[in-house]
């Protein structure tokens, strides 16, 4: 991955999943929703299914599914989990919430992750 993305996007994100399980699908949906809301036009998502490319788990240092890796902007950051906790995703990716959806962070529309 080069520092200058051909698509010219600011956010280059890669989501690692292990098969198209309900949890993987949930993560993909969550990621798309968050990106559309906060990063419209500024992002690119690549989904890597480790079931199809098992060698990449070792090469890319992945142990958990789903794992989201922020490739750009650098330095890279990684998040584990199905991305249901939007606030943590935003903090983890260092994305300032879009002004028009400020309430997302205050309204905690998801149940807490911790059991």
């Amino acid at each position, binding site marked *: 991955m080069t520092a200058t993305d051909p698509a010219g996007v600011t956010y280059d994100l890669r989501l*690692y999943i*292990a*098969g198209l399980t309900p*949890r993987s699908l*949930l*993560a993909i949906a*969550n990621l798309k929703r968050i990106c559309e809301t906060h990063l419209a036009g500024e992002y690119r998502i690549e989904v890597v299914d*480790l*079931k199809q490319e*098992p*060698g990449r*788990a*070792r090469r890319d*240092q*992945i*142990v*958990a*599914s*789903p*794992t*989201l890796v922020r490739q750009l902007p650098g330095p890279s*950051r*990684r*998040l*584990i*989990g*199905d*991305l*249901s*906790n939007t606030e*943590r*995703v935003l*903090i*983890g990716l260092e994305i300032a919430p879009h002004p028009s959806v400020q309430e997302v962070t205050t309204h905690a529309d998801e149940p807490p*992750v*911790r*059991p």
Partner: protein
Amino acid sequence: MTPGPPDASGSLALLPRLDKIPTGIVGLDEITGGGIPRGRSTLVVGSAGAGKTLFAVECLVNGAERYGEPGVLISFEESGADLAQNAASLGHDLRRLERDGLLLVDHVHLERTEIGETGEFDLEPLFLRIQDAVDEIGAKRIALDTIESIFGGISNEAILRSELRRLFLWLRERGLTAIITAEQGTESLTRHGIEEYVSDCVILLDHRVLNKVSTRLLRVVKYRGTEHGTNEYPFLIDRNGITVFPITSTELSYEVSAERVPTGVPDLDAMLGGAGYYRGSSVLLTGTAGTGKTSIAGRFVEAACERGERCLYFAFEEAASQIRRNLAPVGIHLARWEDAGYLRIHATRPTAFGLEAHLALLFRRIEEHAPTVVVVDPVSNLVSIGSPLEVQVMLVRLIDYLKMRRITTLLTGLADSAGDREESGMEISSLSDTWIRLQAVRTDGRRQRTISILKSRGMEHSDEIRELRLGPGGVGIEEIAPDERHAPVSAGSAGP
């Protein structure tokens, strides 16, 4: 698990026999009756620096090199480069094994994120990763070192626990022989209680300070379906890897020899029924400082070398150079026998390490050199690093070990000045077959050395006190005229 073969004699063998594979770790396979359970997980627990990683590496390297079983090492702590470097100090070339497709090291690098997890997850990628590595080289053995580190990288413990449980089942389903290492805990055996999920075989590595010296001990805590010793066995990590020392005291079945071994001093042979010590016996030689213990030991060794026997001299007081130098005036020249490869002198400070490690080292040296004659000079210096009981236990084991190998052993002991309380409470004399006492006496203002045989099992021996003469002519013994006999220098018994 395969059922054992029918036993014609009708004894035992009714239990299904657990299939075992050798670890290749010297001593461990003896203790466990064949190694670790095949296709199962073995948990290796220890505190920091206890030797967990080296244990795992040894099992894999031996499996690959000697038993045709390639191995995968999933390392959660050390990088491949670090592992290779550490293993090199034990004489293993991990890089070569990797190139030959006999070993695959995958360093799982976990970075703890501050923010925690964003939702539910599983460890399926880790499973895929392991499967991929196993498939790549056709691995039969796998080590996870230390899987618990995952608790440091991921915060959701509930998910981790259920995933680890699933992982261990998964390893078993695949018939992999696994070594799982874990940090020793305070409330449970392991810090994160993973012994709950891995329960076929549990080995504890301990690194304790006994009498101010560090000692490594190994214990088989649990071994489902097999008999195992519950003792703590000393082990050693050195350039040869890990060596565990089984305690041999239980096997008192050594052959007693009628063969005799000259002492190197013809006059002493004469005192010992004319032929010297028994082959494979243990001889204790006690005396106060300067009475000639090392000279008699030196002659014993020199004469053995002259006969073409291999000898080991363990020096716990003097440096090898000092021993050579001190013996030269008595006409004993050891260097040439060292050069010729018959003799090895190992000088070690008693306080360099613990009793167990000393014993381990003695065993190792003996195995390396395969001597027929061993001298420990003086054995009494080991008293300083253990309680009398510990020293006693160590000596029992040492003597047993030597006897089983039919090695004739001379142990010297420094007696206190009273001359009668040999070995300050240490009962070596009862372990010895022959006990020779040296004393210093004064005759007409002349300092004189005497020698007497307090006991010698299974032979008729002299019961006289004779004079020991040390000089350029060598070591000689002369009878003392009745009117010349005097009491020892200091008050005390003059012997039997």
